[in-house]
């Protein structure tokens, strides 16, 4: 790569589409990823997130649309011409080269003669300098993953792309790497674009998440934003769990709406309403419910007449399935902090929750 004006800035995708024959993998995608942020593309298998990543890397050509970094249009640029590096899912370390040469690969291709200092520095960053003369086949999965990261980061790209890099690691190692990746990103200051299907991973690491489904972005925002105020059923169910109950708007009462919910009247803050019609799907997260046995004075919204049908112990919390009079089973998480009542299967309970934790979508939303 010759010495050109350094390409940097926000990553912008402008109406990018990718079709494989009849199959539309990415459908008219537009988004802006601010420079220096940790961005996650989250979605189930086949939603188009990996295809999008590959198009940014230059490993796949968009069928239409533009990709820009700052003011520079990189849509036509080949993969080796872009200041973008990728950490691959199975690491793709070169088996015939030592760790040192693997990490130095990008630097050498760019014509940099003296690679020692840069390579040593990044190997120290991932704490694997002592392995520099080994071959990839001699390293463990976690070590390979860190080398793959080092190999990408050493090039100081404008963008670092990560394609489900933690998928092959066991749970504990994965958690550890999530923290490390986040730390490295803030240390190094490069824009990270992380593709994953693991919603917990996305929520812990990213500043901004885009949830993708069927080639489109369903919703984009901060993890808290997406979690507490999902705008589609898909997002509500993909991030964490949700209970959905059908209801009807009856009246307006200042800042709240009065909603008729299976015979009871509950309050819905207008700011939490994303529905356009008066028939609603009301969403409440399981951990927002509280269970009560006695007929105490209840605050907030409440639903009576529930019967516990299942109890599962999760260590940190207990999950209850509660069957309501209208034959719907609701899911409730209670933290095992001693605050919840001692309950058994078959007990009659009332559920309550704070109105601001409700979110409402259109009644016929999918």
């Amino acid at each position, binding site marked *: 790569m010759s010495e050109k004006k350094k390409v940097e800035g926000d990553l912008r995708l402008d109406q990018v589409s990718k079709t494989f024959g009849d199959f539309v993998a990415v459908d008219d995608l537009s988004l802006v990823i601010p420079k220096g942020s940790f961005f996650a593309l989250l979605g189930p298998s086949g939603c188009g997130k990996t295809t999008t990543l590959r198009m940014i890397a230059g490993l796949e050509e968009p069928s239409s649309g533009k990709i820009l970094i700052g003011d520079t249009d990189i849509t036509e640029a*080949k993969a*080796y011409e872009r200041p973008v*590096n*990728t950490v691959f899912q199975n690491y*793709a370390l070169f*088996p015939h080269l030592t760790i040192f040469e693997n990490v130095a690969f990008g630097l050498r*291709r760019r014509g940099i003669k003296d690679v020692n200092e840069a390579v040593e520095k990044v190997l120290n960053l991932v704490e694997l300098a002592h392995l520099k*003369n*080994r071959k990839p086949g001699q390293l463990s999965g976690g070590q390979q993953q860190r080398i793959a990261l080092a190999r990408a980061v050493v090039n100081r790209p404008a963008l670092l792309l990560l394609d489900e890099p933690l998928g092959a690691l066991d749970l504990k190692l994965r958690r550890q790497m999530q923290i490390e990746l986040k730390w490295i990103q803030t240390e190094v200051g490069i824009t990270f674009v992380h593709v994953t299907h693991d919603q917990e991973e996305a929520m812990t690491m990213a500043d901004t998440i885009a949830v993708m489904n069927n080639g489109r972005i369903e919703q984009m925002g901060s993890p808290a934003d997406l979690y507490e105020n999902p705008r589609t059923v898909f997002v509500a169910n993909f991030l964490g769990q949700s209970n959905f109950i059908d209801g009807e708007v009856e009246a307006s009462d200042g800042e709240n709406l009065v909603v008729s919910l299976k015979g009871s009247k509950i309050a819905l803050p207008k700011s939490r309403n994303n529905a356009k019609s008066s028939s609603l799907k009301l969403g409440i997260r399981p951990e927002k419910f509280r269970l009560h046995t006695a007929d105490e004075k209840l605050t907030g919204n409440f639903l009576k007449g529930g019967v516990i049908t299942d109890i599962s112990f999760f260590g940190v919390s207990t999950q209850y399935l509660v069957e309501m009079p209208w034959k719907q089973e609701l899911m409730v998480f209670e933290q095992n902090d001693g605050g919840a009542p001692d309950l058994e299967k078959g007990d009659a309970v009332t559920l309550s929750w704070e109105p601001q934790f409700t979110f409402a979508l259109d009644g016929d939303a999918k």
Partner: protein
Amino acid sequence: MKHWLSKNLIRIYAAAAIFYILLPILYTVAFSFNDADKRNIVWQGFTLSAWLNPCEPIGICEALGNSFKVGITATIASTILGTMIAFALGRYNFRGRATTNLLIFLPMATPEVVLGASLLSMFINIQIGAGLVPVIIAHIMFCISFVVVTVKARVASLDPKLEEAARDLYANEWETFRRVTFPLVAPGIAAAALLAFALSFDDFIITNFNSGTLNTFPEYVWTASLRGVPPQANVIGTLMFVIALAIVFAGQVISKRRQTRR
């Protein structure tokens, strides 16, 4: 005892089978030391004279030289042509795959008599006749298929993500091939070249049809078999065997070393 027998019976059998495979080779080696001039059939005494005078019988070293000439030329040409085809088959999806596969496969399945006869027939018709060049042409022809099979297996086991990683790390198409693809496929190409050479060196039927007055080593042995094969032929046979074994074992040591280092 019975348990030991049933577990090891197959191992004993395998050892016996391998001895059976090696038996004629051991015979050949042994009789290279025989103190006999032409009629090297009955053991007459130990001597190194065949080893010390390998080119004594008339025509043997000339034949050997011809075998090398043909072998090296055919190996280089067929390895290049075959490797290119292997890459095409292993990496690309193109129309006409089935026909290509068939065209590569058929020479391996055609009896050598038919291959040799058809080539000679054509060479006669176009007035080229027989000789060194027709033999080399023929050898390249039948070696290509074997090269393709060997290299294709290696190409197929090459993770395309490695080449993507190279491109991601600023290597253009040529650099990717030179620094990633080729080093990883090289062992397969080396094996294919060795195989091609072995096939060419040892070929008799097709060579016999197309060589005319020229003699390769197998042809020398064949003609000599009518009146008596001198021990020097055994010497050459033994040398071939030892060198080939050495190459194969060296190859294995090298590939073990590549996977681990220091």
